[in-house]
């Protein structure tokens, strides 16, 4: 079970998308795990063949516990070892013919032709919309029993709801008569959304408390003249069709990502008493959920994406975040986070860093302000940018250079 957040202790396997015998490649989604914050699609980080599924659907396992055994290409299959705790998905490393004589050579598994797999695309990934996935998680629907009626046989929310109300395929277990109800049983089960709300608050509380306990934050702020960026954006959007329009957030994300090249100690993690630079600028974007709650999933390699690619990725990310289904690489791989609270009218946000990251950039509302330039005062759209940074990893001078870089990059939006 991978750690999908600084505060995560355990996850529940909702659904396996692979079974023993399936081949997988790196990045394939092999299961959905329910955490307190969202249903997370687990992406596998190695290629090979599924040997055994160790954790069962419905089982809650602690972070680090064995989920499955995967035989990487070229290895001889072997019986699973005693459960170990170190890594999430274990690949079997079996010595080949040169085994020490004291070890009994394992019997190879019988060569049985596996039953034909359920009709799924060759990536092993179920074709299902994020909203339908979320609904399936909340209604407790086994996706294997659902027929998809969407494009290419994709499963839609309506398909899931139909399956939820369909008569069960197996006979219902006979309810055992309850002699005396336990006194602490609540009168009504709270709806799943309320449970998830409470769980999410708990997760946020743990992460933020840990952050303030462990990370010596320092804070810097600067005003940024956004007139060039907004003018450029307006002109660009006139050239674009409605679905391709850009939001100014995209420029902010790109500027932050590119600025990390100049001050790399803002991009990475503080672990085991040292700063470990991130491989790539994976910018976490704080996304607020409609009824409370906050997740900051990562967008990968933002410095290398065009503004259009960032916009497409952002729309997709926001959509999946709000229905509560994200991918494991998004939940765990942000190397720096951005929070933008300008739309709520706040002028500056001094945030709390998400451990183990070392920096959080905050952007406030763009407000028309008097601005002095070249000895004259005019009105310009001005935005306050802030940096919350880990004083173990960097000092104020470097933090200042980072904000200065962001400011400079936003003066030349066409180069972003």
């Amino acid at each position, binding site marked *: 079970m991978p750690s999908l957040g600084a505060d995560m202790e355990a996850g529940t396997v909702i659904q396996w998308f692979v079974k023993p015998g399936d081949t997988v490649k790196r990045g394939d989604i092999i299961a959905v795990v329910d955490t307190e914050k969202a249903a997370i699609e687990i992406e596998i980080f190695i290629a090979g063949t599924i040997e055994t599924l160790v954790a069962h659907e419905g089982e809650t396992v602690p972070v680090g516990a064995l989920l499955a055994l995967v035989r990487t290409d070229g290895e001889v299959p072997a019986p699973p070892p005693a459960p170990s705790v170190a890594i999430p998905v274990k690949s079997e490393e079996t010595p080949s013919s040169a085994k020490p004589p004291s070890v009994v050579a394992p019997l190879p598994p019988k060569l049985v032709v596996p039953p034909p797999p359920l009709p799924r695309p060759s990536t092993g990934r179920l074709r299902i919309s994020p909203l339908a996935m979320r609904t399936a998680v909340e209604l407790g629907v086994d996706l294997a029993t659902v027929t998809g009626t969407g494009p290419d046989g994709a499963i839609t929310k309506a398909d899931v709801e139909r399956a939820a109300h369909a008569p069960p395929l197996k006979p219902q277990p006979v309810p055992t008569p309850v002699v005396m109800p336990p006194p602490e049983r609540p009168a009504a089960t709270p709806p799943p959304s309320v449970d998830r709300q409470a769980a999410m608050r708990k997760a946020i509380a743990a992460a933020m408390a840990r952050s303030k306990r462990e990370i010596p934050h320092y804070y810097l702020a600067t005003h940024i003249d956004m007139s060039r960026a907004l003018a450029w954006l307006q002109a660009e959007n006139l050239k674009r069709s409605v679905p391709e329009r850009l939001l100014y957030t995209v420029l902010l994300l790109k500027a932050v990502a590119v600025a990390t090249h100049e001050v790399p100690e803002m991009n990475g993690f503080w672990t085991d008493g040292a700063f470990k630079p991130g491989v790539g600028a994976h910018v976490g974007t704080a996304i607020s959920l*409609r009824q409370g709650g906050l997740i900051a999933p990562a967008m990968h390699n933002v410095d290398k994406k065009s503004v259009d690619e960032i916009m497409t990725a952002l729309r997709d990310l926001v959509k999946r975040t709000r229905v509560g289904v994200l991918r494991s690489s998004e939940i765990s791989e942000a190397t720096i986070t951005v929070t933008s609270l300008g739309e709520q009218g706040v002028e500056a946000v001094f945030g709390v860093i998400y451990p183990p990251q070392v920096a959080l950039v905050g952007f406030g509302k763009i407000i028309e302000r008097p601005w002095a330039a070249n000895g004259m005062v005019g009105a310009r759209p001005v935005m306050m940018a802030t940096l919350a940074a880990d004083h173990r990893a960097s000092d104020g001078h470097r933090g200042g250079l980072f904000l200065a870089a962001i400011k400079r990059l936003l003066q030349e939006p066409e180069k972003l």
Partner: protein
Amino acid sequence: MTDEQIKTVVLRVLGDIAPEVALDQIDPTTDLREQLDIDSMDMLNWVVGIHEVLGVDIPEADYPQLTTLSGCVTYLRARVR
């Protein structure tokens, strides 16, 4: 299209964005962003939704006319076939 039909479409697209809001209780003259807690991403998604359903392209410069429900209906009435 009648005003009522336009209003239904507007509310349906808004409902996709703000699923927990009781759409029949929206005040037509109050700012929608306040009533529904929608941000610029939501606004863009709404504009895209209207474009898909009604075929109306709404330029960014016109966004200020769409801040209320009745404003939306008035705006779209003039532009829907």
